[in-house]
């Protein structure tokens, strides 16, 4: 047809063409779809040997709890972890993206990633999108220059702090930190304070709940304590357990291997260089 697609070269950045359509639809009564937010409490603190990050595990979709036990502490590098608050998709996508970029950078340089690298990559990306990528992050890690803890706001500004909280439960957690933090904490004291801060968020903020995740990063070593505390167990659990009686009957069994088992001879042809 005459109107066959003449591909314009792709323009960079956001295209706001559909905003007028969305406005018109909203006026006609269409409710915008709700998205999965991690109304959250995330915290980080620097102790004498490194960094401790903590997060709650509730993901909300408006007034409903969408995921009772989600993971908010994302992997960035073997020595860097990042907690994310805000829109769940945004935090996941942004941390995954920067994590891959860091991996490529590690291959390129042959060195351990630095926290400021992750910080700059995240900050540049978020600023570029002028706050529309709604990800509020607490980035922590230990590299050759020492332990670092940063907060990154959705518009792209960053802070370097000894202790930080983000998310809807940040005030409750910050009140615990402001009253209990001191320099030179040991690992156990640090974990205790982080747990107390997250619990303050869990019990005093409606957007945070369920369990407490903790991640301890020190030089050359990390400990990811998933569900370190579970202060909200199910109240009524059937003591007899659940038996699913009507199982499907197995009438006959035949196993067909899909891959051929091939013998690999050690002194085979070496790969051409």
């Amino acid at each position, binding site marked *: 047809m005459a109107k066959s697609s003449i591909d314009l070269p792709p323009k960079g950045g956001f295209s706001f063409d559909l905003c007028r359509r969305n406005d018109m639809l909203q006026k006609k009564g269409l409710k915008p779809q709700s998205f999965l937010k991690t109304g959250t409490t995330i915290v980080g603190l620097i102790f004498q040997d490194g960094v401790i990050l903590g997060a709650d595990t509730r993901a909300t979709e408006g007034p409903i709890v969408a995921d009772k036990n989600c993971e908010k502490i994302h992997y960035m590098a073997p020595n860097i972890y990042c907690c994310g608050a805000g829109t769940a998709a945004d935090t996941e996508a942004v941390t995954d993206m920067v994590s891959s970029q860091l991996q490529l950078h590690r291959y390129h340089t042959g060195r351990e990633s630095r926290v400021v690298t992750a910080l700059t990559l995240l900050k540049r990306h978020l600023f570029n999108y002028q706050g529309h990528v709604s990800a509020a992050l607490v980035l922590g890690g230990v590299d050759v220059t020492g332990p670092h803890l940063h907060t990154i706001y959705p518009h792209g500004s960053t802070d370097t702090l000894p202790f930080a909280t983000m998310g809807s439960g940040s*005030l409750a957690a910050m009140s615990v930190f402001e009253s209990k933090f001191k320099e030179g904490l040991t690992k156990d004291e640090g974990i205790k304070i982080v747990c107390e801060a997250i619990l303050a968020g869990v019990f*005093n903020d409606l957007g945070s709940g369920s369990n407490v995740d903790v991640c301890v990063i020190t030089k050359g070593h990390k400990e990811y304590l998933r569900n370190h505390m579970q202060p909200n167990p199910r109240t009524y659990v059937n003591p007899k357990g659940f038996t699913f009686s009507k199982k499907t009957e197995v009438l006959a069994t035949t196993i067909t291997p899909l891959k051929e088992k091939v013998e690999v001879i050690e002194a085979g042809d070496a790969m051409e260089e």
Partner: protein
Amino acid sequence: MYVVYLYTQHPKNAVSVASESDFHGHSQCFLKSTLIGSYGSTLRYKSIDRLKPIGKHSLLGASGEISDFQEILRYLDELILYDNMWDDGNSLGPKEVHNYLTRVMYNRRNKFNPLWNALVLGGVKNGQKYLGMVNMIGINFEDNHVATGLGNHLARPILRDEWHENLTFEEGVKLLEKCMRVLLYRDRSAVNKIQISKITEEGATLFPPFSLKTYWEFSAFKNPTVGAEGSW
């Protein structure tokens, strides 16, 4: 929509007030507030007394619009005066004053002309201690520890964890100071001038204002960009 309506009625900024916190001790109540009356973003009046004794048995603390607070004090003055004129040996206790305040606030809210305050009322009568709060929309409740404004978010978690039935005066003051310190760090409209007041069976005592010690010597604050020259 409600707030926009009010905005057109009161285009001038309200003289607002920062948060306070307080709780039961055994047969005593403590109230604590900062002495600030701000005008929008300016810290205009730094010696406003926001804690007032009411009658023989109660203490009232307020945050929000100061002129409305002064109006409420006049209403309460009249109330206590009429009660004293009966001269029947009975006097209005904290529960009664709290009820009166709730009715006043709720009625004004129904007429779309609220008194823009969050009030805290504490008191002791016949050995019974009482601590209650009333909002500008008429929400009222009684609890062992209450706070207004940002204190709800910053001080309540600490109070929930650390308040218990048998606090002594010193422990209570320390706990409230802890809360006020956090508020001082994290509320932009707070100042370092705090006043405590206590009410027991014997009566109300307002202590002179004092300031809290703050700690700014974290090494990370001194040199935040160590290891990352040029960043911030």
